[in-house]
């Protein structure tokens, strides 16, 4: 599969980085084709500008700065997000990536008199998130896990209607031991290698 990996972590030596490495290793093992967007390394600006807002409906046809990113989105068969969960959700840099690239005629279509937006990323058949939490799983369930809703519902609505999703979350990051972390890394690699 052609996989677009979107990575958001400021620390090149973090556990988050190890998760990316396992993701990439697993995908390679599975013989998948990979495109990587490392948002922090790119210095990605997550703020949707006034210009982008004013020209929202057709800016995707000739985007001044994000042509490559839009192309990658339209080519991907699998979308993979690797990031730490902050305040129950995506880091601002990743939230902004979605806001700026999931545009009309790329991610969805607006049709006159249609009741709902039409999904346009019909190329995307797999959606995977790999994330770490400071909080335990029960607490995340209790507060509604906003980040999970953002990706598996809001973003998912733009993909192929048969798109399958997988959530790989490591909870209570700072309260677990090394074995548990290793287990999670192995799980990430195996999931990526077996992607279909």
């Amino acid at each position: 599969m052609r996989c677009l990996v979107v990575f958001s972590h400021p620390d090149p030596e973090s556990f988050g980085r190890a998760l990316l490495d396992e993701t990439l290793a697993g995908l390679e093992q599975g013989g998948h084709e990979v495109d990587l967007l490392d948002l922090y390394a790119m210095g990605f600006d997550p703020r949707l500008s006034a210009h982008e807002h004013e020209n929202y409906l057709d800016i995707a046809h000739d985007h001044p700065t994000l042509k490559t990113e839009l192309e990658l989105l339209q080519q991907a068969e699998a979308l993979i997000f690797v990031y730490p969960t902050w305040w129950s959700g995506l880091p601002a840099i990743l939230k902004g990536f979605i806001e700026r690239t999931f545009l009309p005629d790329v991610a969805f279509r607006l049709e006159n008199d249609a009741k709902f937006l039409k999904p346009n990323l019909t190329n995307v058949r797999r959606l995977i998130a790999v994330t770490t939490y400071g909080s335990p799983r029960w607490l995340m369930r209790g507060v509604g896990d906003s980040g999970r809703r953002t990706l598996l519902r809001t973003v998912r609505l733009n993909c192929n209607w048969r798109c399958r999703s997988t959530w790989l979350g490591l909870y209570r990051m700072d309260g677990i031991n090394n074995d548990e972390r290793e287990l999670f890394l192995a799980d990430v690699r195996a999931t990526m290698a077996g992607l279909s």
Partner: protein
Amino acid sequence: MSKPKKTLVVLAHPRSDSLIHAAFDRVLTGLKRAGHPVRTIDLYGEDFNPVLSLEEKTAHIDQGPESRPDLADHFDALLWAESLVLVYPTWFGGQPAILKGWFDRVWMNDVAYTLPEGADRLRGKLRNIRRIHIVTTHGSSRLINAIQGNPGRLRVFRTLRVLCHPLTRTRFTALYSLDKIDRDEIALWLDEVEAEFA
């Protein structure tokens, strides 16, 4: 009329001709009418950078606000407020990145919470805040937002609220199906927004 409450209003929209800016103005009009002391933060207006840096990430646990003098005004405003008002468009179910990044960067150790030695969970520190009010617009319908699960609303009313006073009250003033409704409905909503705060 209720007792005056120190109110911090945070605005997140790139365009000054937007409906959200109009709503922001009406919030201020209402608050003024009711005599509440007000401070405002216009995130786009001040070119706020929402990206938590490596340096900040590293300082997240063991340093406090003194490590970020560039954010001093934000900390000060957050610790001053008794009432917090967030005015933003809902994009992809939640707050625009610039506002999400304001949470990521400003709601930091020793401002919004403490993490005492040995504790495994954060202790909220914003006991000054007793009311959180969201004013927001949605392009999509109420139904679609329900399907998406309102992640933005949950983040503020569940995750962030826990850091505030235990009796913090919340309120959500929202407009849906923005592209399908007419001017009258919008005008009506703006009146409602003003009345909420007056």
